[in-house]
């Protein structure tokens, strides 16, 4: 089945030790997103790619970087994780481009199962 896959499902890292989370998709979608979700809170968009065009949300810390080497894969790099970065990280994809005027009804975001990051 076509899907969004995230690895690993659980990641433990030490304070300040770089970590990379990965996401792959078999849906061949143009757009890929990274969200951060802290306990009992809504997902917060960190950045998204439309094809290879990278879009950073204004309040995403510089500590977070992303790479999309091809359509299928997207990576989230946390350069120096702090205790406050412990969260669930969700990857999502969608099909149509994020153009003004495109109705959301045409666009569903497909989420992966998430990677739960623990920072010790």
């Amino acid at each position: 089945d076509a899907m969004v896959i995230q690895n690993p499902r659980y990641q433990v890292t030490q304070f300040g030790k770089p970590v990379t989370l990965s996401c792959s998709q078999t849906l061949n979608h143009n757009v890929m997103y990274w969200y951060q979700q802290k306990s009992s809170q809504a997902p917060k968009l960190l950045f998204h790619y439309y094809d290879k065009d990278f879009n950073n949300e204004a309040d995403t810390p510089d500590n977070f970087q992303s790479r999309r080497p091809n359509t299928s894969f997207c990576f989230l790099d946390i350069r120096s994780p702090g205790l406050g970065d412990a969260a669930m990280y969700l990857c999502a994809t969608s099909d149509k481009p994020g153009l003004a005027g495109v109705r959301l009804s045409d666009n569903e975001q497909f989420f992966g199962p998430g990677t739960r990051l623990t920072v010790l």
Partner: protein
Amino acid sequence: TQLLEQSPQFLSIQEGENLTVYCNSSSVFSSLQWYRQEPGEGPVLLVTVVTGGEVKKLKRLTFQFGDARKDSSLHITAAQPGDTGLYLCAGPINNAGNMLTFGGGTRLMVKP
């Protein structure tokens, strides 16, 4: 900034009870989506509502979009333990394209 507020934040009920959760905004949205997120998983889309006053049904779930397209509700009839999860509403940021803003969610627990 378009904000979505969901209420209640937490809801614990017995199997068989009915419930309604709400998603409200002071802004008009071109459409709203409802997602359910089970523990340890990513959100899964339940429905998209696009027309003011629209009602959509998905088995025991009934979704309504307010006439003014500023609010939406989700009603569950005869809740079951399998309905347990986090219910999120989401709308397009600036009513444009794919970018979503999410409400804070309603965490529902249905006890057998």
